[in-house]
């Protein structure tokens, strides 16, 4: 990680009809980093992203892309940015190639050879001269990424990039994003409402709720705190008795016990159970659901 931020968002607010919907969002992206933007629907992810890409003007706050202010140096800032906001909506009546040509013509610094490069990069060479209206959603998503990469951006912004993709497509997308960050030293901002997705893709994550970032941390830290262990043991009452002495426990619905995930202590607990004659049938770690995470971080405030 270098010290010059690729994207700097500071104290961003947006008021619509006298209602503050984004309340002072700040975060920073460094080169080569995949940053997750996590929040439930309606938390303000898309509004924030639209302000970053210049589609909505912020009420206050500054956004700098590659050191250029989006408001005062719009064209310079946009030169460092590639994005897909929500769905990759391209011109359905043009071919994939014509779509790319169309967007390439809008930036004189893009050489013709770049088109061939990005098409190969996203693996669309076979179908690139077909009309976009004949493309599957996965292909449109790839074409969307191709157009975002045309200008060799420093920052790539993807709003819900795996929305509507099948499992294979999701995995492919995830690997693709990681490769881009690693090999091209690109900073990627990915928004999602799925924790599992962010966890597999991102280095750091900001949790946004009701228009405010309530926590920014590395994915490891965030999950380590919240990860749970699920115990399946017999007899249950005895297991419960023993574990209760060691840590806080919750009872699961289907005859399981849930404790915090505390790596160094786990073997100890297990040993005690075994010594007391409890048969431990299953021990597995479980990621908290996004809802749990929110409840934990916000101290019990509900999502809506």
């Amino acid at each position, binding site marked *: 990680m270098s010290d010059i931020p690729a994207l700097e968002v500071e104290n961003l607010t947006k008021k619509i009809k006298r209602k503050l919907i984004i309340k002072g969002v700040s975060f920073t992206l460094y080169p080569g980093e995949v940053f997750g933007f996590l929040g439930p629907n309606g938390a303000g992810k898309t509004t924030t992203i639209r302000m970053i890409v210049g589609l909505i003007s912020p009420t206050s706050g500054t956004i700098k892309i590659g050191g250029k202010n989006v408001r005062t140096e719009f064209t310079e800032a946009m030169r460092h940015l590639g994005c897909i906001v929500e*769905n990759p*909506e391209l011109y359905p*009546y043009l071919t994939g190639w014509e779509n790319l040509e169309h967007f390439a013509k*809008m930036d004189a610094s893009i050489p013709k050879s770049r088109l061939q490069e990005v098409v190969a990069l996203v693996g669309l060479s076979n179908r690139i001269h077909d009309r976009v209206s004949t493309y599957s959603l996965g292909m449109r998503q790839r074409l969307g990424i191709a157009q975002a990469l045309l200008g060799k951006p420093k920052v790539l912004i993807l709003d819900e990039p795996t929305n509507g993709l099948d499992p294979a497509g999701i995995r492919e997308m995830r690997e693709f994003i990681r490769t881009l960050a690693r090999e091209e030293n690109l900073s990627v901002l990915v928004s999602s409402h799925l924790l599992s997705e962010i966890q597999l893709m991102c280095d750091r994550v900001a949790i946004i709720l009701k228009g405010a970032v309530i926590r920014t941390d590395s994915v490891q830290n965030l999950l380590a705190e919240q990860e749970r262990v699920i115990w399946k043991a017999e007899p249950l009452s005895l297991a419960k008795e023993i574990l209760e002495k060691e840590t806080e426990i919750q009872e699961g619905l289907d005859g399981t016990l849930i404790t915090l995930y505390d790596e160094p202590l786990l073997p100890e607990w297990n040993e005690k159970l075994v010594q007391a004659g409890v048969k431990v049938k299953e021990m597995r770690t479980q990621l908290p659901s996004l809802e749990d995470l929110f409840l934990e971080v916000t101290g019990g405030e509900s999502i809506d």
Partner: protein
Amino acid sequence: MINLVRNEMLKLLRKKRLYVIILIIAFLVPLFTYAQFKEIQDQREKMGNQDWRTVLQQEITDTQNRLSSSRIQDEWRKYLKIRLSQQQYYLENDIDPRAPGAPTFMRIFVENSIDLLLPLLVMVIVADLVSSEASGGTIKLLLTRPVKRWRILLSKYLAMMLSISFIVLSVAVLSYGISGLVFGYGGWNMPLLTGFAVSGDELLTENVHIVPQWQYILMEFGLVWYVCVIVGTLTFMLSVLLRSTAAVMGIMLASLIAGAILVNMVSSWESAKYFFMVNLNLTNYVSGMATPIEGMSLGFSMAVLAVWGIAGFIIAFVTFSKRDIY
């Protein structure tokens, strides 16, 4: 900028709108050619005489007869009187106002399509120029490029101007080419009268002069182009303001048709002359027809249209560069 305009033209061509318009014109012109042909044939049969002077004389007598009837409305009487003095002028100067020929057909065709047909065709092209990008979501990709918003909108406006010029040109070419098969291609130098002015119910002939028909047609096509650009600009503004192409079409269609109706009944409502849609019939000033409202003149109508056009242009650009896109 050239690249941006090229992009817009590519999108326009791919949407096949221009082809549709060419097809419409190519379909209508033979229709009107046939109608015109029938009319001339009919007249000849009725007169049993090939000489246009007799026909014109007959028309003058007709008009005089109608004028002497006491039952006709004042409005109508006014128009007939103007028509009469014009006809008499043609006869005295030995000029056939309806000498058939492709250029004459072209002239009559544009005179009749300036207030409704051509604005409608323009509307078909312009209505979704901006609104389709908004409803299709492509505006998000368009506006996150390193290009300022006003430049993107200007490229669309220039593409609109090019298409309008193309439409007007194809009307000229198609109406000349197709009608010429029936009427022959001659008649460019036929002398025509222009410069009529109407004051009260008097036709002022002091500024009337003779111009060759090609010059007259050129003048009329210039006016047609001007009207189309203004109607295009207003449609363009609506296209920026509204996301729905259907709404843009609806509003424009309603105001154009309202204009066509109003022209026939607003003669006593004087301030109606500031509406853009009653000022579309610019070619009427050239041929010396009665104006829908007293005090309207070519200069006045062009100025009213210019004010509407400039206002539409400014509103479109200001909204587009400031608007939040959701």
